[in-house]
């Protein structure tokens, strides 16, 4: 490949090194050889003007592209009239003057206070589109904020996310995706005001970015942030946006964002001018109140979490006690059963011993009876012998021996019978 690339580079660059002239035949290129050649092109140098003309950049917002005419910015009702919108169709369309406070800190610095118009368009789903263009000195295009807020009042807290694409494709409930695309777009062009019209970037998805990348320098994206709004005031909503902005760059020809390490904090406070005029401290106080309210909400949420944890702990303890009780009962039951088995076995052993003892005694008695009988029989034989030699004493002895032998026989017979 490197040879091919070398060839491509060399030929594209036009030429290789000087070669010494030789005596070679020549060939005359026909005029037609030049006809099918690619047109000369200047080196690509994308500028802001080029970006807005890139094919496909606006495809995703084709349906509303008319509303994004560069000179209009949707700042006023006349803009809608000029676009041919029948205001009778949107009778509730109106606008409010908003006091705007912008502060950027970190690796960039910007402070601005001024006024902007809030264009409010109610929708049938109970939300209203709030669109505010903030014209900042030194910026060719306004920062554009647009969000749909529910009209049921209260304080709203949303996280800001940085993915532009998340707001594309009409999410079912835009209330879950406020300001994302708009603020992301604003952040994109925030520090490149000469390059990017934030309005044009609202519909931008990464897939729309040309492979050569329209970004010819660093740009910024929203890293994280928050959006708070309060709609309790008839004069209009109060809104606060805080976002961490990161700077990114692309390698030449690439489209993968690469952080440069520069970050900034953007804080925007939007307050109805009527309230601001009534009391310059009102919006700041609201912010304080709003912060206190948030703090309270956070505290309550934390309390709820703590209570839930305590309840959970209690349930866990109760479950542990019940488990231990069950374990104890199981152990007692097992012990009783084991003792019962041991007692039964002991009883059985004792009975066996008693039986053996009885058998042994019986055998002893039988043996003694047999022995007594044998002794009586032996004595009877001796008495018979003596009676032959000494009739006087022998007769008496024989009589006694016969009597004892008869007793022994009887005793043995009785024992055997038992």
């Amino acid at each position, binding site marked *: 490949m490197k*040879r*091919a690339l070398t060839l491509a580079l060399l*030929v*594209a660059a036009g030429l290789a090194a*000087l070669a010494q002239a030789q005596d070679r035949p020549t060939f005359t290129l026909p005029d037609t050889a030049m006809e*099918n*050649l*690619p*047109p000369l092109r200047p080196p690509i140098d994308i500028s802001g003007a080029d970006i807005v003309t890139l094919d496909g950049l606006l495809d995703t917002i084709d349906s509303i592209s008319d509303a994004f005419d560069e000179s209009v910015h949707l700042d006023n009702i006349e803009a809608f009239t000029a676009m041919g919108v029948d205001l009778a169709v949107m009778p509730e369309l109106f606008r409010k003057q908003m006091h705007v406070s912008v502060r950027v800190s970190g690796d960039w610095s910007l402070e601005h206070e001024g006024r902007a118009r809030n264009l409010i368009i109610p929708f049938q789903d109970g939300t209203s589109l709030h669109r505010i263009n903030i014209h900042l000195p030194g910026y060719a295009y306004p920062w554009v904020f647009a969000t749909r807020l529910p009209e049921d009042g209260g304080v709203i807290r949303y996280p800001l996310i940085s993915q532009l694409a998340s707001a594309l494709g009409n999410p079912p409930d835009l209330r879950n995706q406020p300001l994302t695309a708009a603020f992301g777009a604003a952040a994109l062009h925030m520090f490149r005001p000469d390059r990017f019209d934030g309005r044009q970037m609202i519909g931008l998805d990464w897939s729309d970015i040309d492979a050569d990348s329209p970004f010819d320098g660093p740009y910024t994206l929203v890293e994280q942030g928050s959006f708070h709004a309060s709609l309790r005031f008839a004069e209009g909503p109060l809104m606060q946006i805080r976002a961490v902005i990161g700077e990114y760059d692309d390698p030449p020809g690439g489209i993968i964002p690469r952080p440069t390490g520069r970050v900034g904090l953007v804080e925007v406070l939007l307050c109805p001018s009527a309230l601001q005029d009534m009391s310059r401290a009102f919006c700041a106080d609201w912010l304080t109140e709003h912060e206190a309210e948030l703090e309270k909400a956070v505290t309550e949420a934390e309390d709820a979490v703590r209570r839930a944890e305590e309840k959970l702990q209690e349930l866990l303890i109760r479950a542990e006690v019940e488990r231990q009780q069950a374990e104890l009962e199981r152990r007692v039951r097992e012990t009783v059963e084991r003792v019962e088995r041991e007692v039964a076995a002991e009883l059985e052993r004792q009975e066996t011993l008693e039986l053996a003892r009885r058998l042994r005694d019986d055998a002893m008695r039988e043996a003694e009876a047999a022995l007594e009988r044998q002794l009586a029989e032996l004595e009877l034989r001796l008495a018979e012998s003596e009676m032959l030699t000494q009739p006087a004493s022998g007769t008496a002895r024989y009589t006694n021996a016969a009597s004892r032998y008869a007793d022994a026989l009887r005793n043995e017979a009785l024992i055997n019978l038992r």
Partner: protein
Amino acid sequence: MPTPFADPRSLAMMICACSLACAAHAEGFPTDVEVLGEVTAVFDGSERHWLTFHMPAEGTREATATAYWSGFDTSVLPEQPGIGDLGVDLDTLSADERAMIEMMQAQMAQIQSSVMDDLAAEVSISLQAHDPENPALLTEGVLILAPAGFNLRPEDWADLLGQPIEAEITYVEESTGGLPSILYTSDARSDGELIFDTLSFDSPFGRATGQFSSTLCRVEMQGMQITEDPDDCRAIDGRFDTELMADGA
């Protein structure tokens, strides 16, 4: 459908035909060019004839050629970073740490030098021939022979003389706006084959003779849309005899 260009260099070669044409736009581009050599072949049953060109230097325009040999230009490679390029505050290093880094860098430099020497010795060859009968010969009817020899030094090429080596063979039939739109390439069947009979890498001109063959199948390119037609294939079998300009000489 997968791209028929398994090797991206084939695509680059396609663009070469356009790039040459782009060069032709340069102011003062000559209408008379020198003939370095010729390529003949039986292509799809017909005898065909192509020429390789050399455009000598003139004024600020450098010489270029459609048949050339070139070494690897190591000057485009980044240099080994020095200890000061590491982003380390040298004052914070101990003597041992500094010595360790310097030793590691010396080793890296030695390895890079060795690699550079190997790369610098490599030689590649490219042949792009144009049909003198074609009215749009700079961008159409172009035959490109690209032998697949990588990491080869002149002595390696010499060892391959007389042996068939794999090659990318491409014929650009039509182009649109200078970009190839209909072409026939050996990539589909990967049977491109080339044999060098003689080869010299002299400067300013070497020489190459040999033969080649393949079956080229049709590919249509509309922008980056590439469509291959495996049923439309044409056999090619031919010879070449051309000088090779020493690129960079």
